[in-house]
């Protein structure tokens, strides 16, 4: 008899983690499995980090509904989970007279979706609000409810809060197949053995098609990875303080130029359909494309300012929108399919998926209730994830107090982002232990500054080895096979 849960969530991205977090409010035993060495290593950690206002999706689609509903949730959610989030608003910037009419269309679309507060501003006003903007700007659409967030923090915070409320998380655990009893899902097979369940939630991102096909659901549904590449610019060299979108094309929102919460500027993404769901390589040509896009909005940006490049894969699906009369073939899937029992099926969760994750989680709860699941609230549910100290954000007096309390906060390990040993150790022993270099990086932003970890890397490897009680040779960047070191030097051996 395998370990059995009420609900098993497959996939620990923003969507899976939010589902687990919102479900943890009820008397349910819940397991979340993630195939990688940490949660949030998929699309949820390689995106534009924008909490979209909701004017972009076509009215009537699930994307539009989820986006607008979720946008409203973000202030409370970010507060409860301690996710860095700022509602800075965003702009769609028209360059030259030809693009101007498109702003009206977007404005109208936004109004139909229920996005509050949008209006069109003049070219002059835009130049005033963003001095770096292309002088050929002809006007801009202003959406005050747009926001930016720390994308890494979303999955981590939600998962951590879920764990606080009794959810179990297993990393390096890959879903392989369902265990069926006739048409009913009774469990799953993984590389770590079988687990029983009454409900399985498919939140597998790029692999959601594979997972649903194992249950015989939507055989025609296919996810095509669509790569988006990015450059991060050095905040010491240039800063753009706003979120700037170009006028969108038919297939994507285009290459944007946006502020991050850390004061850096990012440029991207482009959009390229590829075959391999693991191919996050950045391409030579792709980077060239980014600069054309960036210069359209902010001509003064230069490749010389780049401090990092990365790529994310959109889980682009082919599900038709179910609202009658809406002709759209890339909608989210959020359903309990009729073909089988016990599956909550999510698919095609591409942008605005990060924004929508909490609304998707609420919709999952609704669907479960509709399916007759009696969800009983736990009286002791704790919605607040306690924050951990961030040395660099504290005034000197508080830094002093923190060091007096725990001297490990006095040792700076990452010189660019000012991350201390205390913070690293805290993450290694957090509810979801950070056991790799990249896991620590996503939680503290260490190694993301201009020296790219060349200073902190040996030190972090040391701290990880010490805290985990293993040899530095066992420490990895992002899971098995990514060890930093290969053997001791001869002197040490001898």
């Amino acid at each position: 008899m395998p370990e059995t849960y009420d609900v098993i969530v497959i996939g620990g991205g923003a969507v899976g983690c939010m589902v687990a977090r919102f479900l943890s409010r009820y008397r349910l035993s819940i397991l979340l499995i993630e195939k990688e060495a940490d949660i949030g290593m998929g699309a949820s950690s390689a995106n534009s980090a924008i909490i979209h206002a909701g004017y972009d999706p076509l009215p009537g689609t699930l994307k539009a509904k989820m986006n607008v509903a979720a946008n409203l949730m973000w202030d409370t959610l970010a507060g409860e989970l301690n996710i860095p989030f700022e509602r800075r608003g965003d702009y769609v910037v028209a360059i030259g007279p030809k693009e101007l009419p498109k702003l009206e269309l977007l404005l109208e679309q936004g109004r139909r979706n229920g996005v509050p507060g949008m209006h069109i501003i003049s070219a002059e006003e835009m130049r005033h609000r963003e001095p770096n903007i292309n002088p050929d700007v002809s006007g801009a659409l202003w959406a005050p409810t747009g926001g930016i967030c720390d994308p890494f923090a979303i999955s981590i915070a939600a998962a951590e809060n879920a764990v606080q409320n009794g959810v179990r998380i297993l990393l390096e655990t890959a879903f392989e197949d369902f265990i069926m009893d006739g048409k009913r899902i009774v469990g799953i097979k993984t590389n770590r053995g079988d687990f029983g369940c009454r409900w399985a939630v498919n939140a597998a991102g790029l692999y959601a098609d594979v997972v649903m096909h194992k249950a015989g659901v939507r055989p025609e549904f296919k996810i095509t990875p669509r790569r988006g590449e990015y450059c991060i610019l050095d905040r010491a060299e240039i800063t753009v303080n706003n979120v700037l979108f170009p006028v969108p094309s038919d297939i994507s929102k285009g290459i944007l130029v946006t502020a991050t919460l850390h004061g850096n500027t990012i440029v991207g993404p482009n959009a390229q359909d590829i075959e391999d769901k693991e191919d996050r390589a950045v391409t030579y040509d792709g980077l060239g494309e980014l600069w054309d896009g960036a210069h359209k909005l902010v001509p003064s940006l230069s490749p010389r300012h780049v401090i990092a490049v990365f790529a994310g894969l959109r889980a682009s699906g082919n599900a038709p929108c179910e609202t009658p009369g809406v002709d759209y073939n890339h909608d989210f899937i959020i359903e309990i399919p009729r073909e089988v029992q016990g599956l909550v099926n999510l698919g095609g969760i591409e942008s605005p998926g990060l924004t929508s994750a909490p609304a998707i989680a609420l919709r999952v709860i609704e669907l479960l209730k509709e399916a007759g699941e009696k969800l009983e609230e736990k009286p002791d549910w704790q919605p607040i994830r306690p924050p951990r100290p961030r040395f660099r954000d504290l005034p000197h007096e508080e830094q002093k107090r923190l060091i007096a309390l725990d001297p490990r906060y006095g040792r700076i390990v990452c010189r660019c982002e000012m991350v201390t040993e205390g913070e690293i150790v805290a993450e290694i022993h957090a509810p979801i232990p950070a056991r790799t270099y990249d896991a620590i990086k996503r939680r503290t932003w260490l190694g993301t500054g201009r020296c790219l970890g060349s200073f902190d890397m040996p030190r972090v490897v040391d701290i990880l080895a010490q805290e985990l009680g293993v040899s530095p040779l066992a420490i990895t960047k992002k899971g098995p096979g990514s060890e930093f070191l290969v053997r001791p030097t001869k002197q040490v051996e001898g």
Partner: protein
Amino acid sequence: MALKDKYDVVIIGSGPGGLAAAISAKKYGAEDVLIIERDVELGGILLQCIHNGFGVEIFKEDLPGPSYAQRFINEAMLLKVEALLDTMVLDITPQRRIFASSKINGFVDIQARAIVLAMGCRERTRAQVRLPGTRPAGVYTAGTAQRWVNVEGYMPGKRFVILGSGDIGMIMARRLTFEGAKVERVLEVMPYLTGLTRNYVQCLLDYDIPLQLQHTVKRILGHQRVEAIEAVRVNEKWEPIPGTEEIIPCDTLLLSVGLIPENELSKKAGVQLDALTGGPVVDNNFETSVPGIFAAGNVVHVYDLVDWVTEAGLAAGKSAARFALAERRREIRHIPLLAGHNVRYVVPHELDKQTLMEEEVRLQFRVKQPVEEPVWVEVHSENNLITRKSERYVRPGEMVTIVLTPRHYEEVERATSLTVSIVER
């Protein structure tokens, strides 16, 4: 070690530049000299440079880096230079207040009469960040690899490709070969060597490590760990020439693409930087644009010989000592004017005692509370009444003045502060 609140000269960084500055500051009369170093040992980057090539100019000897550093560490210790190790300076104000933080020393907040910036340089990573391809483990700067091999005792790979013909990369090529690793290739995007010819001969040629000029890395391959890189020939504009690609299997890519002065702190102190060198603009005394803040070594510009870093440190230390001693003299001459009973404040805030030898000094202030009857306005030193006058009343709305004259000089000369107060009669 008990930390003082105030030091004559504080030096940030303990590489050859910082050590020389400390020694010279002491020799030129600074009394309290403190080095703050973020690493756990003194010596700076020299500690991981275990190869020879240091000291030929100064000692006429060819020393390994740690031995070169040790000579200066010994001298600094003999001269009773104080040092805070494992302590990182976070902030410097233009008024020379220093904030640092440490696991062993806690939060440090001290005032310096003069500061020498000697933070050295860091490796450039620009090329790394624009490298297309995947982002696996196994891409390191040559200096990070050097630290792992020479300080921590670990090999970061078995098969290496090195991008950039800088000195650290070439020295590491030899070091890694000694350790039994295979260095497949050194690639250099420029049409010429960027490091010293000496290193090319002694580190690459002698070990049959091929150097390819006008070549770069087009792509990194491998998901978890580097599995190969794609090398490509470039034209004069550094653009890849199609058809010249070659896949080189390896597990590690080292980057040795230059050094850049480390000036995050200098910026916080408001020091003016030179866009070309990346370091502070300095005068011949190595003073920066902020009075009392000096800079020496690779923090100013990247030297090719450590001996010259030492020379620069000696000069900066001397200038810093001079500045600090002048500050001390100024401090001894200046005493604070304090607000005593029923006085809100006194202007001027400080008194330059020497002025009193020749001239009168007018002290002006306002009271806190009105007193509608005759009072004394008194000026006291710690022990004595210096002078007093009477007023028929005092009111907050009306400024009060009391004058010190050369007659008071002798008493004032002995004082370390003066207090102005209202005394009811």
